[in-house]
Every structure is written in structure tokens, then in C-alpha cells.
């Protein structure tokens, strides 16, 4: 493992310490729970609290999206493992200003269970937590079983739109509905070229043979729909866009936002090379690209690969995407 780490069992603690030092102007760790990151500004009077949470190892997700007009707090889990119900609850409690809290998270077994229990804990204290569960990963289940799909980088759009809507002063139900709309309008796909290693385990947690790629791979190496020979970026990008758009089925003329994220060890220039083909395919289908985000937005330790997310945007989502934010992970 050619990596910058200390004790493999303390990767999350060490990451959080360095993260909070770097961004102390924007956020901090909750004094009550070292696994909750809270915006310096939270709670904001008259604003619905917006939180998320998930396993670590996806930096800048989830912690990097805490900040003004974005997330108010994040519950932090171990590497690739859900945070506790208590952390979700503490995150909600820390940002509640009496208007309720919405938890915008991804569809994973552990997260589902822990959020469910956090809701129970919160209800006992009269705190309402509404939820939206992201399931934008098209390869993780057929369209007929959309509820089974995993949440991936589309969560960034869900947070951005939900966070902005809350900043506008919307009600809990309005924020929930907007975040739900955002993720309903997202479709994503991942392609893996190389695995990642949990430091405490010390060897890759799955295999991708050199010369091959895994299409539809998940953020923890969940198997994709197929393994095929590694092709040119032009072909890979076109196929990623085609898969996502086939599932999306948008009318020509629809406006979309595009997010291409590296998985941790893929350099930016390769994401641009992919984007060339992706945007060509999107344009070929008569769609108009409103805005493109390219970089490491939602990663998987040092996995080699990339994800594509396409979100169909209406006037509301456009307005919310355009709102200024001040968080570590967004420009």
C-alpha cells in the first residue's frame, strides 16, 4: 500500500482531524459526537435543517458538502460502513431550528436501518426527520425495481438542490419534495478500471484484471452488469452516456446538468477526455447541457474509474443549482 496513512484502524479519525483543521471557517465537529460534522452557521433560524451521512472513504463526500446553502451536518461512518443511528440523530439535533430536518442519504442496507432508528430516536424528542433516499445508480437494479437501486454521485445534486431550497426558507415538506425531485431526475453509472484497498484489510477488496473494465460497478466495488475489455475513452464515454440516457428517456430539447466524478485515482485530464465523448452523445440526442461538473466529487478510496450522473433540470432545479454555496467540495 503506497498510501499516506497512520494506523489503518484510525483512518476516519485522522481524516476528520485534518479536514476540520483545513476548513474551520466553514464547519466543525459536534462537541457532543465526534462522528458528526456541523456547519459553523447551523442551526439557522427559520431554516429546515439538511443532513446526510454515510460510510467514509468517499471524500469529499459526504463531509465536504457541509456549508452555507448546502448541508448543515453529516453523520460520519467507518470506511465503507454506515454511521450509527445516534450519529444520524445527533446530526439532526445539531441543526434543528424548529422547522424540522431532512435527511438526504443513499440507498444502502446499513444506512436505511440506522436512519430508520434515528427517526425513532428523534420522534421521542419531538423532532421530525423527513427523508429522501437516493437511488440513481442505473446498473444496480432494473427500472422496474428503481427502489432497489443504490445511491451514488447523484446525491451531490440532491444535496445541492435540497440545500438551496432550504436556504430559500422552504418548509420541510417543500425541501423534501424538491430533493426527491432532484434525485428522481438523476441517473448515474460507474465504470471501474482498478480496485481499492481498505487499509485495515491490506489487500484489494475486489479484482479488475488489467485490460478489462467493470461497467456498472458500485462505490464499494459492488459488481457491475458486465466486465469487458477496456476500450477507448471515446467508446467508454459514449456507452456511459447512452446507458444513463436510455434509462432516463428524456424528450429532445430537455435540459440537463452533468457530473463526472473520478473514483479517487483517476487524473482530471482523463475525466475531460471522457467528457468529450459524453457531451457528444448527450448533444447527439438533442439534449441541452446547462452545466458540467468535473472532478473528484464522490470517490471510493483509491479506486481507478469514473462515474457519470445526468440530472434533468427544470427551472426550479436550475435556480437551485445556480445558488452560491460555500462548502469545501463545490466550486
Amino acid at each position, binding site marked *: 500500500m503506497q498510501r499516506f496513512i497512520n494506523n489503518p484502524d484510525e483512518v476516519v479519525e485522522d481524516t476528520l482531524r485534518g479536514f476540520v483543521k483545513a476548513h474551520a471557517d466553514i464547519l466543525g465537529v459536534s462537541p457532543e459526537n465526534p462522528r458528526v460534522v456541523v456547519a459553523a452557521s447551523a442551526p439557522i433560524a427559520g431554516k429546515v435543517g439538511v443532513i446526510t451521512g454515510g460510510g467514509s472513504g468517499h471524500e469529499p463526500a459526504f463531509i465536504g458538502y457541509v456549508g452555507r446553502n448546502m448541508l448543515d451536518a453529516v453523520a460520519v*461512518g*467507518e470506511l465503507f*460502513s*454506515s*454511521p*450509527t*443511528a*445516534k*450519529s444520524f440523530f445527533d446530526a439532526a439535533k445539531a441543526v434543528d431550528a424548529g422547522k424540522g430536518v431532512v435527511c438526504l442519504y443513499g440507498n444502502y*442496507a*446499513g444506512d436505511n*436501518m*440506522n436512519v*430508520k*432508528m434515528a427517526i425513532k430516536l428523534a420522534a421521542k424528542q419531538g423532532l421530525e426527520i423527513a427523508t429522501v433516499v437516493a437511488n440513481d445508480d442505473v446498473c444496480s437494479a432494473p427500472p422496474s425495481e428503481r427502489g432497489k437501486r443504490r445511491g451514488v454521485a447523484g446525491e451531490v445534486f440532491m444535496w445541492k438542490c435540497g440545500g438551496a431550497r432550504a436556504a430559500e426558507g422552504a418548509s420541510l415538506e417543500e425541501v423534501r419534495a424538491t430533493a426527491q425531485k432532484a434525485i428522481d431526475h438523476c441517473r448515474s453509472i460507474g465504470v471501474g478500471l482498478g480496485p481499492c484497498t*481498505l487499509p485495515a*484489510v491490506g489487500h484489494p*477488496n475486489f479484482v479488475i484484471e488489467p485490460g478489462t473494465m467493470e461497467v456498472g460497478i458500485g462505490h464499494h466495488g*459492488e*459488481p457491475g452488469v458486465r466486465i469487458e475489455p477496456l476500450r477507448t475513452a471515446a467508446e467508454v464515454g459514449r456507452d456511459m452516456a447512452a446507458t444513463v440516457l436510455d434509462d432516463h428517456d428524456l424528450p429532445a430539447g430537455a435540459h440537463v446538468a452533468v457530473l463526472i466524478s473520478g473514483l479517487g485515482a483517476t487524473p482530471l485530464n482523463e475525466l475531460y477526455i471522457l467528457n468529450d465523448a459524453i457531451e457528444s452523445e448527450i448533444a447527439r440526442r438533442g439534449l441541452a447541457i446547462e452545466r458540467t461538473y468535473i472532478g473528484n466529487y464522490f470517490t471510493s478510496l483509491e479506486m481507478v474509474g469514473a462515474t457519470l450522473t445526468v440530472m434533468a433540470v427544470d427551472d426550479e432545479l436550475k435556480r437551485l443549482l445556480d445558488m452560491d454555496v460555500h462548502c469545501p467540495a463545490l466550486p
Partner: protein
Amino acid sequence: MRHLPNGSSGDIVLGIAERIIENRAYLSEIDGKIGDGDHGVNMAKGFGIAAERIRGKDMSLSAAFDLLGTVLMTEIGGSMGPLYGMMFTEFAETIAGAAAIDAALFAKMLTAGLGGIQAIGSAKVGDKTLLDALAPAITAFEAAISAGRSFDQGLDALVIAAEKGRDSTKDMVAKIGRASRLGARSAGVLDAGASSCAVILRELARGTKARLANDVETVR
């Protein structure tokens, strides 16, 4: 009729924690074959924290179950935190008001725990999870009691069925959780959660039997 006194029986949970900690490496090893190899570590961490807080406290069984369940739910995370966390807090809630736990209440407690797990996870019997040890164990206990056997005999049936259930996971193909990634390759190994569940139930039965007393009314 025989019963388990609730007060001062918290040490049963200490015994369960000891068994889990003893089996730390074994449970992780099983999980490593088709999972990510952390089951023993996860379990030992949560049960260890709870044991520290129970030791020397003269707790009731319901209080100890509640403490253990709460530690799992609030400090462990992942999947095991909520699953076993729900089981033990449901155990606690069911027996909370009772001074004595008879076989019927014990069965109710087990069933509530099973319900808690199923309410939060969505696994079914046959999916190769801890349910494959827990569900048949409860069925066997209830069957023994309704067939007129004693609490003691019911507990013996419980342990036998739990271990048989655990062993049945060996040939199963995982339908849920991390091991389900492997499809048919997940067959041939025991399920880690079913193994820890059998450990828990055996020690729960042993501790219960050691504390069973005759009802005052019955003796009189």
C-alpha cells in the same frame, strides 16, 4: 411454574459478551470467507463496551439488555449495530415491567426481538443471515412449551434448533448483505451472523437455566 427473576440477572449479558469476545477471531474468520472479515471485530467491540458498563452494577436483565442494545445501536453503526441493537432493545422492552420472566414471556421476548430485526432489516429465513439461527430457535422453544415441556427443556430445544439453523446456512446461497455479491460462490461456508446468533442463544439459555427458580405461588 419456573421463572427467571428479572432483577440482578443482568450478568447473563456479561456471559454473552464473554462468549462473543472469545469468538472474536473465529467469527471474523467465517465472515472473511464470503464477507469483509469484520464480524467478530464489530461484535466484540460492541459487546465489550456494553460489558464494561454492566460489570459490577447489579443490573436487572431488562436494564442490561437495554444497555447492550443501545450501545450497539448508538456506537457500532454498520448493519450489526441496528440489527442486534433492535433485538436486544426489543428484548428489554418486552420484559421491562416484569419482576419474573416465565416461559411464555420469554417466548414473547424472543419473538419481539425477531420482529425488531425484521422490522429494520428486510431479510427472510433462507437468505443466509442470523435469522436462520434465530427464527427456528424461537419456533422450537415455543413448540416445546406448548407441548407441555418445562422452561428448561424449552431452552435445550432452543439451543439445539439454533445450532441446527446455524449449520443449515452452510449450504445456502446468500440473498442479502455483502455475501450476496458472490452469488452461488457464497455456498459452502457458514454465515457469520448465524454463528454469532447461535453463540448468543446458547449462552442466554445457559445463563437463564442457571437462574431459573420456582414461582412463590407454585411452591406455596
